């Protein structure tokens, strides 16, 4: 009975008794989830337009952040460093398209997936070779972002909101809205969706596949840069980020591989879910549940909706 009590009743009693703590946990989960969602967004962009499951998105986040910090440490002014990093991400997108994707056109999905593994390995080696493997500190102040927190009195306690987190949420929301408009209203966005539907049909109406791929990989690179800045600001910039990026995979499952709103909703569900589970139920099993909780949520969801929350319905034919 004790076990049942501590699983089903005690956590909710705690939530009700200390609502300020509950709100704080919820907020932390939301911010963490937003960052997962940003990484997932990079995956979705590339998957939508080229059907490639881009495993390298995690390392692209690290690489973008490292380039930025590395340039800044070398004495380049902050905004110039930002511009150079954007140029580097463009060069990366261009090279990937030219060297990896173009020769592998029309190969099965798993081969392209493996090719992105190759890219991951290369970027890990290259990043460590150029910038070294030590963790670096993101110079947030130089980008006009403030550190510190707002402490808000509510529900009989204090809830502290990091200023950086608030900015992160705003920027992420703006970026998602911007991408949404870009996909549905602009010429290039429509071309992207056409390519996603069918490569050959898109080619036949005169859409250049090569150009589209460079554009999506560049867009994913920009998303990676923004993610890298905010994630780097919360902790250090190091290759450990790459492992955290694997967390974006259950987010993708929840949201479906092709849906931008899905990536956001999935990210928030996973972020909040794992924070709450770790805080209220984690101590029962000895803690550390956030290593796997996200995957188990995803697994349970998949059993009921194999295509994810917002994914397109899978129709199987022979």
């Amino acid at each position: 009975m004790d076990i049942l009590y501590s699983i089903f009743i005690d956590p909710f009693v705690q939530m009700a008794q200390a609502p300020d703590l509950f709100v704080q946990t919820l907020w932390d989960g939301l911010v963490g989830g937003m960052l997962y969602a940003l990484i997932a967004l990079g995956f979705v962009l590339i998957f939508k337009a080229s059907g490639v499951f881009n495993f390298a998105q995690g390392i692209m986040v690290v690489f973008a952040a490292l380039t930025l910090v590395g340039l800044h440490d070398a004495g380049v002014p902050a905004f110039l460093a930002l511009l150079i990093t954007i140029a580097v991400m463009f060069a990366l997108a261009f090279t990937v398209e030219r060297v990896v994707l173009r020769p592998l056109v029309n190969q099965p999905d798993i081969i392209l997936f493996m090719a992105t593994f190759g890219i991951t390995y290369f970027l890990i080696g290259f990043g460590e070779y150029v910038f070294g493997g030590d963790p670096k500190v993101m110079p947030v102040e130089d980008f006009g972002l403030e550190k510190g927190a707002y402490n808000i009195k509510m529900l009989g306690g204090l809830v502290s909101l990091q200023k950086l987190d608030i900015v992160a949420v705003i920027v992420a929301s703006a970026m998602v809205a911007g991408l949404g408009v870009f996909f549905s209203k602009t010429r290039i966005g429509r071309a992207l969706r056409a390519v996603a539907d069918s490569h050959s049909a898109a080619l036949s109406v005169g859409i250049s596949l090569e150009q589209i791929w460079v554009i999506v990989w560049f867009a994913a690179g920009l998303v990676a840069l923004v993610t890298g800045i905010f994630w780097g600001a919360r902790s250090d910039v190091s290759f450990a980020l790459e492992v955290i990026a694997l967390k974006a995979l259950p987010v993708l499952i929840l949201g479906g591989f092709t849906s931008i709103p899905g990536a956001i909703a999935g990210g928030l569900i996973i972020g909040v879910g794992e924070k709450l589970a770790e805080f209220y139920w984690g101590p029962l099993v000895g803690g550390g549940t956030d290593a796997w909780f996200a995957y188990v949520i995803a697994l349970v969801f998949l059993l009921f909706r194999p295509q994810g929350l917002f994914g397109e319905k899978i129709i199987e034919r022979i």
Partner: protein
Amino acid sequence: MFYREAGQFKTSYASDQAIFPILQDRIGIAVILVAAFSLPLYANDFILNAVMIPFLIFALASIGLNLLTGYTGQLSLGTGAFMGVGAYACYKLTSIWPDVNIIVWVICSGFFAAGVGAIFGLPSLRIKGFYLAIATLAAQFFLEWCFIRIAWLYNYNISGAIEVPQRTVLGVIVTGPRATSETRYIVVLAIVVAMTWIASNLMHGRIGRTWMAVRDMDIAAELMGIRLLPTKLMAFAVSSFYCGVAGALMVFLWYGGAEPAVFNINQSFTILFMIIIGGLGSLLGAYLGAALIYILPIVLRFVPEWLGIPIHAATVEHITFMIVGVLIVFFLIVEPAGLARLWSIGKQKLRVWPFPY
């Protein structure tokens, strides 16, 4: 010219369905086996310990994953964790019953991995492709967490790691720090060869054919009367059995001790590389892939030394990463079907040599 089956007539169904129907193949495999078993006579400790034993163990794990991903078409990223299940099961079994032959426990530990694999294979009936791959990540992270948090698994050792005790078979020390590398090599080789032979027979028989039918189109296979759930679960179980044995061998006959980090997600990815570079759906490919991915970085590490270039060890490490990444992409572009495919092309060329076709 050298490799021609002219004059070799098959007079029975058995000889038609033999694993090596061509005489030259049989001679070749016999030569390789003799060379492999006599390797301790002329190879040094480094070759045995740091090259051959790990290579064989990785080949076994690759065969395991290949049975699942290459033959049955179920992408799995949980290989590392299933290897861990094997290793921890073997450790617990031999600490509870220390008198039983350790080789029996190594094989038995495969059954524990098979059970766990079958449980995590359950979602495969509803989930397919990349979705399944991510579902198997749940297995990876959950089991890794268990290896860290459940102290019973490592006998409440304060360091959280497992230490392999000394065990003898027929009076010869097989595991533990005092076992010679020759003994360990022969034991690993014997187990790996036997299990490869079993896998090859499985693939030539009814079970292998149902797996391949499921891989090619599961709905069509179902219409033909193959029951999907038992078939997929069996693929998960057999694959995990192989991975579990590989994991037990890895800890007991190679590392001599292990901590949970050995069975992390990178291990799963390494083995996935091996089968994709080697060739999906090919046992030979598992060996070739393991050789390329495991042995290549070792060779690369020695290149600067041979050339006499003074270079920092960390730099070599980084450059090795870059070269491996480039090679993966290169091999995928040159031959997406893997190294095993290159071998079969080469065989065809040998048959018609010196004529072009």
